Structure formats: structure tokens, C-alpha cells
């Protein structure tokens, strides 16, 4: 334990720190330390030190090391780093004697709060040990509460009793809420100290760690016996505590820095031992809570003749990436909120079987996913050969019977033509599909080049064009089939027409459609 090893100047320092202002802390023995103003990161840093507290010395219950955040709780959602120290090898047990770390409220019986603390680093060197735990996104306690009976306390539950130990708690605003995302690189080291008067100060170096931009670097070093210390330059002090309870077993110094650009940091402490001693050091990085999210867009294409060329996926109508027919692309750094994702570039033999576009909600720190499913078929048969140049079609008559019928007239050629269609709906309360838009009289013009053979037979033609009606306004139309089945046209000639969403088809009930293969 080295209890007898003390530096002459250390008791002065420790004595100053032991002027406790929190003797009523229910979560720790009375031997408390002062709670200096919290060191804070620079304004605007994504991670800020919210609260800290600590204790060194004997515990009322030798099987626990516990400390509360009195007088003020952290904020809900903070990350809490808890570094526990103990001296010697209790009951001859080496290694980490902490079974678990739990948090509690300072009420009678210390009810559990339930946040999960994970071990980050454990380091020991003979008579001194240090274990650092991390909990992220802590919940279920009064946010920044000051009620002495509602203070959040963190406790190490030991499987062997300790005579002397301590803990440093620090709570951090702005750390990523998921532990695996929050915790970055972490290292620990230990070593022997030599008298500074002979060899100069002993350097305690846990090892360099990489730190992401905006991330927190936290470092703590423990020395036994207590000694003067110089912490890593440009790091901000969290606390430096010593223990007078049991002959000044040791002292720790904890510091932090927030990296604006990211990189590597290698904190080092210079311990001015008056005699031989030991040191421990741990550093770790905590990543900032993300402010953006990612999106993975996946395509799944099935069927025949799946294309080999990429489709195009477009985000918010502005950012596009090629995407394989069966593949995925990622959009990163997206602002939280709704984003529109659209897929395009499908060949004519493929069609989307899922919604397009879709709206995806991005949550900071999370990766949203969306999948477009595409079904492909055999490529369409080659277009039929164009009809002979002199081929054209005329006709007129009636389609349908009863009270709802259509009359029409047509003249269609490869170079153009005219198309007249009148849908009759004498009954205003008709519920039929044909009369869903009511009566209309449509006047269309055949678009040059659209006149072609149709699929229904050798005497069938198709064409399309544009037109207007007073009732429907401007519309496009397609005569999918106009077939000359002979004379008379009734019951033999067939026509199928689409005008926007209007569709009608059938054999004529009067009139005639005549295919002319050549003019006289």
C-alpha cells in the first residue's frame, strides 16, 4: 500500500482539497473533496463537461465505492465516465475486483436507476488499480436536479472489500447516445516512478489515441504515493484529488480536451515522485453525438432480362448516384428530417413494383434504409413493320348500346389525320366507368408517325395523338386497336380507345371501319 510514502508538499495540497462543502452527501462518506468550478470545453464545442464529482478515501461499506453528483445532477442524456481507484490487493485478489457498476438515487435504500456502465479500461500495477467505466445517454433521474434525495450516484460493487478507494465521476453533454458509437480509441499503461530529485519527473503515458473531429479526449493518471504532477499541456483539468484518510495512498489527476479537427493525442503526466512509486494512466476518446444521418438505398431487381446498366437514384431531386439493378448506395451526412428518394433510368422492360419516389426520415446518428423493387420482363417484341405508305383507315359509327354509347369518326394515316369521339351519358346519376366524366365530345388530331399495325390482327391499326374537348380540356388519346372485320361493321369491326383515363373498347353497334390499303 505504501501508506508511509508521502511527499512533504502533497499534504498541503490534499489538505486544501479536503475542505469539503458537501459533507451531507448521502452517497459517500464524509471525507469529501471540494467541488471546484467545472472545467469546461470551449464554447461551441460539441461536447461539454456538465458535472463532475469525486471522492478518495475509505468507504463506509468496504464492498462499494459510491459517489453522487451532489449538489447538481447531470443532464438526462449525458455520458458518464466513472473512474474507480483502489489500493493494495484486497484479500489478495489482483485484477479488477468490480463486479458491476450501477447507478442509484440518493433515497433511502438507494433505488437503482438502471443505466448501463461498461468497462472501458482496467489497469493495475501492484498496489494501485484503476478501472474506468462508461455509460451513455443516461436516463431516469431528475434532469439537473438539486433535491438531495434525488441525486444520481454511481456505485462500484466489489466482490472483495477494500480499505481505501475512490472514484471520479464526470458527466458530458453532447456525446453520442449509443455506447458503441460513442467510445473511440482507449488505452492504459502503468509504470514505476523514480525520485524526481535523482532522475527528474516520471512520465506517465497511457499511449496515443486517435480522436475524431469534435470528440472528447479524457485522460486520468494515478500515482502512488501522492506526488506533484504536471498534466498534459493544453488539456483542461477536471480534478486532482488526494487522500488523507489512509496515509495518503495516492493522487490522481484527470483532464480532458476536445478536438476540433481530429487527429492523434498522446497525453502525458509528469509525476514528481519524492521516492520510488507507481503510476497508472488511461486515456479514451468519446465521439460527439452526430448531427446528421445516413441513408442506404437498395435496389432489388428480379424477372427476365435484368439490365446490366445502372439505374439512377436521386435524393431530394438534386443529388444523384448510379445504382446497380441489385445493389446499394449510401448517402451520408444528411440533415435530419424527411428526404425524397427517387429511382429512374429503368429500361422499358422493367417497372417498379414499389413506391417511387419515397419519403425517408433521417434521424441524426442513424442510418435509414429504403429499397426499390423492380420487376423485369422479356423485352417487348420489336415494333411491327410500318404499314404501307398508302395504308390508311377511315370509319365512323357507334360503340355500345342502350342509353350510354359512343359515336365516332376517324381518318388516320401515317402522316396524320383526325379523330372524333363523343361519349353519351344521358343519365346524370350514372355510375358507370364510361360516364365517370360525364358526356364529352373529343376532337383529336393524329400525330404523324404513330400510325402502325396493331396487335389484334392484320386488319388492325393503332395510332395516337392529342386533342381537346370542352368537357375534358386538352387530352392525349390512343386508338390501341381499330380493326376492319368486314362489312357491315356492326359486330365485326372493333375499336379500343383511351383518352387520358377514359377507356372504351368493343365491337361496333353501327357504322363501319374501313382499312384502305391503297388509294384510288
Amino acid at each position, binding site marked *: 500500500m505504501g501508506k508511509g510514502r508521502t511527499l512533504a508538499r502533497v499534504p498541503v495540497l490534499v489538505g486544501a482539497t479536503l475542505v469539503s462543502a458537501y459533507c451531507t452527501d448521502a452517497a459517500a462518506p464524509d471525507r469529501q473533496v471540494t467541488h471546484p468550478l467545472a472545467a469546461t470545453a470551449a464554447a461551441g464545442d460539441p461536447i461539454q463537461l456538465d458535472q463532475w464529482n469525486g471522492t478518495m478515501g475509505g468507504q463506509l461499506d468496504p464492498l462499494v465505492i459510491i459517489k453522487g453528483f451532489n449538489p447538481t445532477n447531470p443532464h438526462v442524456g449525458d455520458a458518464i465516465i466513472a473512474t474507480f481507484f483502489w489500493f493494495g490487493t484486497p484479500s489478495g485478489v489482483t485484477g479488477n475486483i468490480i463486479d458491476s457498476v450501477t447507478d442509484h438515487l440518493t433515497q433511502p435504500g438507494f433505488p437503482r436507476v438502471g443505466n448501463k456502465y461498461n468497462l472501458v479500461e482496467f489497469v493495475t500495477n501492484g498496489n494501485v488499480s484503476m478501472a474506468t467505466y462508461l455509460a451513455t445517454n443516461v436516463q431516469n433521474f431528475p434532469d439537473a436536479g438539486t433535491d438531495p434525495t434525488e441525486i444520481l450516484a454511481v456505485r462500484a460493487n466489489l466482490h472483495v472489500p477494500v480499505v481505501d478507494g475512490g472514484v471520479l465521476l464526470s458527466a458530458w453533454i453532447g456525446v453520442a447516445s449509443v455506447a458503441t458509437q460513442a467510445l473511440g480509441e482507449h488505452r492504459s499503461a502503468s509504470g514505476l516512478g523514480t525520485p524526481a530529485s535523482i532522475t527528474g519527473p516520471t512520465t506517465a503515458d497511457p499511449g496515443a489515441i486517435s480522436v475524431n473531429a469534435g470528440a472528447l479526449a479524457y485522460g486520468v493518471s494515478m500515482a502512488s504515493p501522492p506526488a506533484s504532477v504536471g498534466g498534459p499541456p493544453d488539456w483542461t483539468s477536471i480534478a486532482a484529488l488526494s487522500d488523507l484518510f489512509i496515509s495518503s495512498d495516492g493522487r490522481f489527476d484527470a483532464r480532458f480536451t476536445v478536438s476540433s479537427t481530429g487527429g492523434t493525442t498522446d497525453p502525458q503526466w509528469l509525476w514528481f515522485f519524492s521516492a520510488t512509486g507507481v503510476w497508472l494512466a488511461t486515456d479514451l476518446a468519446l465521439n460527439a453525438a452526430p448531427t446528421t444521418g445516413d441513408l442506404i438505398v437498395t435496389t432489388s431487381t428480379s424477372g427476365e432480362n435484368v439490365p446490366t446498366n445502372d439505374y439512377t437514384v436521386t435524393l431530394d431531386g438534386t443529388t444523384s448516384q448510379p445504382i446497380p439493378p441489385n445493389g446499394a448506395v449510401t448517402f451520408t451526412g444528411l440533415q435530419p428530417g424527411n428526404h425524397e428518394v427517387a429511382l429512374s433510368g429503368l429500361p422499358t422492360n422493367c417497372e417498379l413494383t414499389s413506391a417511387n419516389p419515397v419519403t425517408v426520415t433521417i434521424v441524426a446518428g442513424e442510418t435509414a434504409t429504403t429499397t426499390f423493387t423492380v420487376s423485369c420482363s422479356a423485352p417487348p417484341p420489336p415494333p411491327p413493320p410500318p404499314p404501307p405508305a398508302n395504308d390508311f383507315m377511315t370509319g*365512323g359509327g357507334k360503340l355500345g348500346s*342502350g342509353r350510354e*354509347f359512343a359515336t365516332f*369518326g376517324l381518318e388516320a394515316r401515317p402522316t396524320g389525320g383526325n379523330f372524333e369521339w363523343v361519349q*353519351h351519358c344521358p343519365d346524370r346519376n350514372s355510375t358507370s366507368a364510361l360516364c365517370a366524366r360525364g358526356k364529352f365530345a373529343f376532337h383529336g388530331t393524329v400525330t404523324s408517325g404513330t400510325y402502325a399495325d396493331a396487335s389484334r390482327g392484320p386488319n388492325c391499326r393503332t395510332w395516337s395523338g392529342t386533342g381537346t374537348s370542352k368537357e375534358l380540356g386538352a387530352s392525349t388519346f390512343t386508338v390501341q386497336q381499330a380493326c376492319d372485320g368486314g362489312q357491315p361493321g356492326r359486330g365485326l369491326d372493333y375499336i379500343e380507345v383511351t383518352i387520358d383515363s377514359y377507356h372504351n373498347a368493343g365491337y361496333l353497334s*353501327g*357504322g*363501319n371501319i374501313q382499312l384502305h*390499303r391503297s388509294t384510288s
Partner: protein
Amino acid sequence: MSALVSNHRGLVALLVLSGGLAVPLGTAWGQSVAGQATAATVNTPAAGSQTFARATLPSAGGIQNSDLDNAGVPNTLGAAGLTSITTGQIDQGLVSVTASAEAADVNIENGLITAKQVLALATSYANGTTATSESNGSTVLNLVIAGVSYADGAPAPNTRVALPGVGYVVLNEQISSGDRVHSTSLTVKMIHVYLVNSLTGASAGEIVVGAATSTATL
């Protein structure tokens, strides 16, 4: 007409065989096509002669149409949605023509005759050996004459109904002509009102709603 056509053909054949006249064989003389559709006509001393929505097929064939939202002759005729279409073409082996004339919300002589919809449809074909005309598809919906309702559809051709004090009306009036071999023509007038002076018995004009004529000769 048919005799003249036959004479022309004989002359052409003779000249072709003798080498005296070069005429494309595909352009047979005597081919003709005609179509006319008139949605409504009023011809009375008071109103004069008025025609509403008439379409006449050009002699070379093609398509013609005419639309009119409303037609009105005070105390004589009211109608809406008047449309006439005629299409047809002369072909080497066939002449085909169709004419349709229609009107809605018909009111004749201040409600003496009313109809929701009137459609006259005439179609003619001629292929050189047969010439046929037909009126399939013609119809009248919600026809009421002097308070008497008639079934929807096409009345029997040339159905005559007296209109006391006014004259009479002929429903689905059909006038045919042609030799039915090389030529055919059909005029369909779905409602043809003959106005008669009740004192003198002389004609006082006519009102026609839905008149379609198709003529084909080959």
C-alpha cells in the same frame, strides 16, 4: 347513274384493249362517295331555313364534323349537344361511308315532341358486286310525342304519328336508292315533323332532328 357507269366501263375496257387510252386500271370510273349529316333543320315561313351542325363529306373522302352546343328556334325547336360526323373513302375494291347526326335534350313545338337523345346513323358500302346501306345504331332515347312515351331505340322505319293541329311526324324515316349492285344510298331522319296548315292542308314547313345520308357507288 348505274347505266352510265356501265357504259363508261365498257368504253374504258374497249379503249384499253385497243391501246387508244391509257387509264390506270385502279381508277375505275363511276366510283363516288357522299355523306352528309345534319343534327337539326328547321324550315318554316316564320323561321326561314335554318340548319344546325351539318357536316358534308368531301367528294374525295376523308372526315368532316360539325358541333354546336345549342340550337334554338323560338316555339319550334330547342336542342343541345348537336354533333355531326361523316367519314368515307373511295378505295380500289370498296367504297365506304358513314354519317351520324345527333342531338340531345330535343324539344319540338314547345314540348309537343321531346327526346333525351337522338342519333341517326347511315352507312353505305359498295364493292363492285354488292352495294348495301344500313341504319344500324340509330336510336332515340326518352321519346315523348304529345304525352305518349316511346321505347328507347330505333322506331320502326317510317313510323308516322299524327300531330293534330300541327301535322304529323315520321320517326326513323328512311329513304333508300341505288341498284344495290354498284350503288346504294340511304337517308335516315330520326324525327321528321311535317307542318301542315290545319285550314288549308298545305305544307307549312318541316322540322328534322337527326338526319344522316350515306351514298356509295363502285
